């Protein structure tokens, strides 16, 4: 699957199937600090992502 990340913006290819919380962990991110969006829909930590999915991992922490 294609995974889009921010800060810095970059794309990764990750093989599926993988659970959302495992993907976040594998990328070294904190579940509290990101949202995972499949297409244009949010997904929960237990959802399974497949090879054909397009995923955005969106940071939610602001510094202001």
């Amino acid at each position, binding site marked *: 699957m294609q995974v889009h990340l*921010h*800060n810095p913006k970059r794309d990764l290819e990750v093989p599926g199937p993988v659970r959302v919380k495992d993907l976040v962990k594998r990328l070294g991110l*904190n*579940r*509290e*600090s*990101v*949202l995972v*969006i499949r297409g244009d*829909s*949010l*997904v*929960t*930590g*237990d*959802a399974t992502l497949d090879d054909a999915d397009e995923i955005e991992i*969106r*940071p*939610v*922490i*602001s*510094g*202001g």
Partner: protein
Amino acid sequence: MNKCKRCGAAAVIDVRRHRAAFCADCFQHHCREQVRRTIDSHKMIAPGERVLVAISGGKDSLAIWDLLLDLGYDADGVYLGLGISDYSDTSRGFAERYAEQRGAKLHVVDIPTEHGFGIPDAAKATKRVPCSACGLSKRHLLNQAALDGGYDVLVTGHNLDDEAAVLFGNVLQWHTDYLARQRPVLPATDGFARRVKPLIRISERETAAYCVLKRIDYIVEECPMAAGNRHLRYKETLNDLEERSPGTKAVFYLQFLDKMLPLLESVAEEERRLVGSCSRCGAPSTAEICAFCKLVERAAPESV
């Protein structure tokens, strides 16, 4: 698959500190209820009052504006142009597009146009870190906008993570004066509009999710001036704790409000007693010239 705690449909967002997951509709209901409960329990906004919401173009400010409008409040927005190159232009665009789509009124105050400096200039001239110059300018100018517009209350989008991180920093350095004024409601006084924070029970992960679910476009990229600041480091530290022990941030901050703030009332009272007014602009200040006027003097001396 996770099921919605409220209706049993497929969930789209999990909120671990509530040991709950929600579908899109029930999550929006959850956010509205959290905000309604916060406003009522802290007596933030009375029925019929005119509300001004500080809008940055980010998730928190747009979420609280949307929630207040959905809850039926008479809420206008105010956007401050900070003069941070492309970032300010982009964030202003998000604020203006939301206002237009929602049919809401947005005031714009552009600091470079009206005061002759941008935040990067101010930080350089005063040797402050940019976020300090920015925070100081925002507090002064948002208050001024609320007073000039005759609004009863100024709403900011500070969320649970913001408040927990500020509390963490204040505790690490035992800033008792800052702790005493870290309140969800700062009442109106001479020269100050009432300031309230209705998002204190909602994390920033939830405000971001709210915007995604309601199709509210906001600026996702971080302010270039904020990269690596102390506030962000505190948030990361607290989120490390939260990941291992969900609910840590809420207990830390909400128990501070319940158990610690009442003990700091004498410190707050002493602070209030010391506040006079700025000899230059008339704003409340503990010094003869307020911090904002000093900043303008150094950042844009020709405008003084």
